[in-house]
C-alpha cells in the first residue's frame, strides 16, 4: 500500500472535528443531566445524581410525558408499517411505467421540498373546514406520511435501479406466477433495504415536530411535549428527558442496524452456489 499523503491527516483531523461538532452538544447534555439537585443548566456540575431522572418519573407537573411518549411510539409504529407497505407498492408500480407516473413522481418531490409548516397548516385547515377533529392518529398520521413516504420511495427507487431483472426473468421462465415471483424472489432480495425504509419511517415520525404541530389535536406527541417544556422548564430535568429520548432513539437505530447486519450475514452465508456446481 502506498503511504498516506499529508492531505489524509489534515482531512482526518477535519473529520474528527466534524464528529465532535455533531456529537459534542448531545454528549454534553447527557453529562449535565446527571447534575446534583442544586445544579443548573450549565457547568459546573454541582455533584452528580440521578435526581433529575427521578424527577422525570415522579412529578407530572411538567405535563404528560409518559402519555406523549406512548402516543409517539404508537404513531411511529403506524407510520413505519404504512411507509414500508406503501413504499414497496409504489416502488413496484414505478417499475411498470404506468401513465401518470411522471406526475406522481413530481408530487413525491413536492412532498419532500414543501415547507413542513404548510403541511401542518393545510391538513389542520382541511380537517377543521370539513368538520373533523384533528387527532394525532388521523391528521397527524397523514401529515407525517407526507414526509416519510418520499424517503421510503427514494430508497425504493435506489434499490430497484440496482435490481438485476434476470432474477425475475429466471423465475418467470421456471413458471412462477407474478405473485410467486414477488413473494419468493423480489421481496427476499430487497428485504435488507426495507429495514432501512422502516428505520426512516419510525424515526422520522418519532422526532417529527413541525408537521404534527397543528395536526395532533389536544394530545401532544413527545417532540411537542419537549418543545413545550423548553419555554417553561429551566432545570436539568429538560436534559434528563432529552438524554432519555436520545438513548431510546439510539437503541431503536441500533436494533435496526443490528437486524440489517444479521440479515446481511445470513444472506452471505446462504450465499450463491453459482460456479460451485458440477461443471
Amino acid at each position, binding site marked *: 500500500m502506498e503511504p498516506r499523503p499529508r492531505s489524509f491527516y489534515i482531512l482526518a483531523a477535519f473529520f474528527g472535528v466534524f464528529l465532535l461538532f455533531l456529537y459534542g452538544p448531545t454528549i454534553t447534555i447527557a453529562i449535565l443531566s446527571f447534575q446534583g439537585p442544586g445544579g443548573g443548566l450549565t457547568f459546573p456540575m454541582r455533584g452528580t445524581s440521578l435526581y433529575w431522572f427521578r424527577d422525570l418519573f415522579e412529578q407530572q407537573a411538567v405535563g404528560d410525558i409518559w402519555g406523549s411518549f406512548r402516543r409517539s411510539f404508537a404513531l411511529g409504529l403506524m407510520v413505519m408499517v404504512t411507509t414500508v407497505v*406503501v413504499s414497496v407498492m*409504489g416502488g413496484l408500480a414505478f417499475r411498470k411505467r404506468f401513465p401518470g407516473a411522471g406526475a*406522481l413522481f413530481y*408530487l413525491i418531490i413536492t412532498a419532500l421540498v414543501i*415547507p413542513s409548516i404548510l403541511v401542518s397548516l*393545510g391538513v389542520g385547515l382541511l380537517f377543521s373546514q370539513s368538520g373533523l377533529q384533528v387527532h394525532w392518529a388521523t391528521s397527524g398520521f397523514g401529515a407525517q406520511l407526507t414526509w416519510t413516504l418520499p424517503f421510503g420511495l427514494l430508497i425504493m427507487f435506489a434499490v430497484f435501479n440496482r435490481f438485476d431483472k434476470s432474477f425475475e426473468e429466471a423465475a418467470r421462465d421456471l413458471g412462477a406466477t407474478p405473485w410467486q415471483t414477488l413473494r419468493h424472489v423480489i421481496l427476499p432480495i430487497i428485504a435488507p433495504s426495507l429495514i432501512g425504509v422502516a428505520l426512516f419511517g419510525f424515526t422520522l415520525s418519532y*422526532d417529527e415536530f413541525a408537521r404534527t404541530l397543528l395536526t395532533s389535536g389536544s394530545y401532544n406527541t413527545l417532540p411537542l411535549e419537549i418543545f413545550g417544556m423548553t419555554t417553561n422548564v429551566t432545570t436539568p430535568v429538560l436534559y434528563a428527558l432529552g438524554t432519555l429520548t*436520545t438513548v431510546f432513539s439510539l437503541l431503536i437505530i441500533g436494533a435496526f442496524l443490528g437486524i440489517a447486519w444479521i440479515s446481511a450475514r445470513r444472506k452471505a452465508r446462504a450465499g450463491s452456489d453459482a460456479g460451485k456446481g458440477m461443471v
Partner: protein
Amino acid sequence: MENILRNKAITGWLMAAPLALVLVVFLVLPILLIVVVSFWQATEFSIIPAFVWENYDFLFGSPVTYSVFLNTFKYAAITWALTLSIGFTVAYFLAFHVRTQTWQIALFLLCTIPFWTSNIIRMISWIPFLGRNGIANSALLSSGVIDEPVEWLLFSDFAVILAFVHLYTLFMVVPIFNTMMRIDHALIEAARDAGASGVQILWNVIIPLTKPGIMIGTIFVVTLVMGDFITVRFMSGSQSANVGRLISNDIALLAYPSAAATAVVLLLTVLIVIGVLLRFVDIRKEL
C-alpha cells in the same frame, strides 16, 4: 379479470393507488385549501369564505415582508455555503481517503446517526455551550481572549446559523458521498498519469462529476432552511424572523387567511428555487 390484471397500466395504478391517495388527501388538498383560504377574510374569532385580495395586499404592502424574505434568503445562502464546504470535505475524505469499505460504512453511519434523533433535543443541546455562563464563554474568558461574556452566542443569528449547519450538514454529506462513490477511479488515475496535480484533479475531475450530488444536497438544505420556523424561533430567542415564523405567528393569532397568503408566496418561492435547481440534475438517474 385475468386480462385486466395483465394490463400493465392497471396493475401499475393499483399498486400506486395507496401512495397517490395519501399524497392527494394530505398534500394536494391541503395545498389547494391553503390557496383558497388565502383569499378569505378573517375576524377575531373566525374565518369567512370570500374572494378578496386584502391578505396579499397587506403582505406585499408591508415593508416587514420584504425584510423577512430577505432574512430567509440570507439564512439559506449562508447555511448553504457552510454545509456545502463542510459536507463536501467530509464526503471527499470518506470516499477517497478511507480505504476499506468497512471503515467507509462505519464512518458514514456515524455521520448519519444524528439524523435519526430529535432535532429539538439537538437544538436544546447548544444551551450549555452558548449561554452567558456556557462552555464557550468560560473557555474564552479563561484563555484571556475576552474580558466579559459574549452575549451574542446564544439567541442570535449566529446561533441560528450554527444550529442549521449542525442539523442539516448530513443532507449534503449523504448525496455527495453517494455520487463520489460512483466515480470511476480509473478517471482519477488517468488524470494523474496525464500529469494533473491533486488540486487539478479535485477541480477538473472530481467536482464536475460530483455536481449531481451537490445539487441534491443543495435542494434539501435550501428547502429545509427556507421552510424552517422552529430553529429560528428557538435559537434566536424570538429575536429574528424568517417567513416560517411569520406564518406560525399568524397561526398563533388564528389569522389563517393571512397565514395562508404568506404560505402561498413561500411555496411559490421555494418551488421556483427548486425548479431552477432541478434543471441541473435528474434526480431519478442519480439514486
